[in-house]
C-alpha cells in the first residue's frame, strides 16, 4: 500500500464511475434547459397580447408621440379605442384604433423606439444584466392568414426579425373599422374581423 502504485482495480472502478458521471452530466442540462424558457415565453406572449387588445394605452393620447422623441416620453402602447364620450364602458375591448396601430407600427419600425416599447412592456432584460432581450413581433392578419392592407401597405407586421429557437405565439381575434382596410376577408356589420398575432422569443 505504501508503494504508491495505482492498482488496476482502482483505475477500472474510477473509470466506470467517471463514465457514468460524464453521461449524466451531459444528459441533465438537456432536460433542464429547453423547456424552462417556453413556460415563461407563453405567459409573456399572452400578457403582451392582452396589453395590446384589452388596453387603450397610457397616457390616453399616447398615439400623438413623436417618433424622434420616443426616448424622452413615458408611454405604454395599447391599441383599443377609448370612447371618451361614452357615459360608461369607455374601453371598447378588441376594437382596435387604426391611428394607434399606425403609431405602434411606426415605433416598432424604428430600432431605438422599439427598444423603448419593449422596455415599457417589461420585455427588456438588459436591466437585469443580460446582453439579450426578448424579441417581439406583432402582425395583424385576415382570418385566412393574409396581412391586412391599407393603401397597399401592411397595417401591422412590425417588430424584431423572428429568430431564436424558442418562440411562442399568441393570437387574439379583434376587429377594426372596415373603412381602414383594403382587403377585409370577413365583415360583421361595420367590423372587419381580423386576428392579431403576437410573437415573443428569446
Amino acid at each position, binding site marked *: 500500500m505504501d508503494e504508491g502504485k495505482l492498482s488496476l*482495480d482502482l483505475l477500472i472502478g474510477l473509470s466506470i464511475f467517471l463514465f457514468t458521471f460524464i453521461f449524466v452530466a451531459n444528459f441533465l442540462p438537456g432536460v433542464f434547459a429547453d423547456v424552462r424558457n417556453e413556460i415563461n415565453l407563453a405567459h409573456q406572449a399572452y400578457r403582451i397580447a392582452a396589453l395590446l387588445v384589452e388596453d387603450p394605452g397610457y397616457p390616453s393620447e399616447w398615439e400623438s408621440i413623436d417618433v424622434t422623441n420616443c426616448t424622452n416620453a413615458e408611454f405604454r402602447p395599447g391599441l383599443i379605442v377609448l370612447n371618451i364620450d361614452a357615459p360608461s364602458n369607455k374601453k371598447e375591448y378588441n376594437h382596435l384604433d387604426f391611428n394607434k396601430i399606425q403609431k405602434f407600427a411606426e415605433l416598432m419600425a424604428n430600432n431605438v423606439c422599439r427598444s423603448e416599447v419593449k422596455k415599457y412592456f417589461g420585455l427588456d432584460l438588459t436591466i437585469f444584466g443580460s446582453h439579450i432581450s426578448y424579441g417581439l413581433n406583432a402582425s395583424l392578419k385576415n382570418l385566412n392568414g393574409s396581412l391586412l392592407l391599407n393603401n397597399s401597405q401592411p397595417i401591422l407586421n412590425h417588430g424584431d426579425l423572428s429568430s431564436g429557437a424558442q418562440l411562442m405565439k399568441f393570437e387574439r*381575434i379583434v376587429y377594426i373599422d372596415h373603412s381602414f382596410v383594403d382587403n377585409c376577408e370577413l365583415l360583421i356589420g*361595420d367590423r372587419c374581423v381580423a386576428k392579431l398575432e403576437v410573437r415573443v422569443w428569446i
Partner: protein
Amino acid sequence: MDLKAQTFTLEGVAASLLLLIATYTIFQSTVVLAPSWSEFENVQLKQLGYDILRVLDDPSGENTSLVGMIKNLTCNNDRCQPPQEFLSNLTVILSSINANARTEILCVEGGEIKVFVLEGFNKTPTPNAIRVSRFVVVDTSLCQNARVVEVRLTLWR
C-alpha cells in the same frame, strides 16, 4: 483468486449504479413532463372563444351578430337553425383557428333553464374542450318572457 483487489471496481460499479438509478427515478416521474403545456393550449383556445363571442356581439349587426341571430332563429324542439350569414361567418372564424364548436343558447322560462343547440354547430365535444359563454340582453320567443340569454360556445381542437 484474491478478492481483495476487486474492492475499487466494486465501489466504482456501485457508485455508477447509484447515479444511474437516481437519475432514472427522478426523470421517470412526471417532474420532467410539462403539464403546463396543454394548459396553455387551453388558455389560447379559451381566450379566442371569448374574443369570438365579443366580436360577434354587435348591436348593429343584424343577421350576422348575436342579437340578430337570436331574433331570427327558426327552432324545432330544442334544435335551432341560425341565419345563413351567421352560420357561414362563424364557420369561417372557426376554421381559421382550426377548432370545432358546439353552440348553445340558454334562456329561462318559469324558473327553468331551456337549452337550444344551433344546427351546424352541434357536434359532441371531446373531453378536453373548453367552454365560454356570454350574456346577451335580447327579447326572444325561445322562452316565454325571456329578456336575457346565455350564448354558450364549447370549443375543442
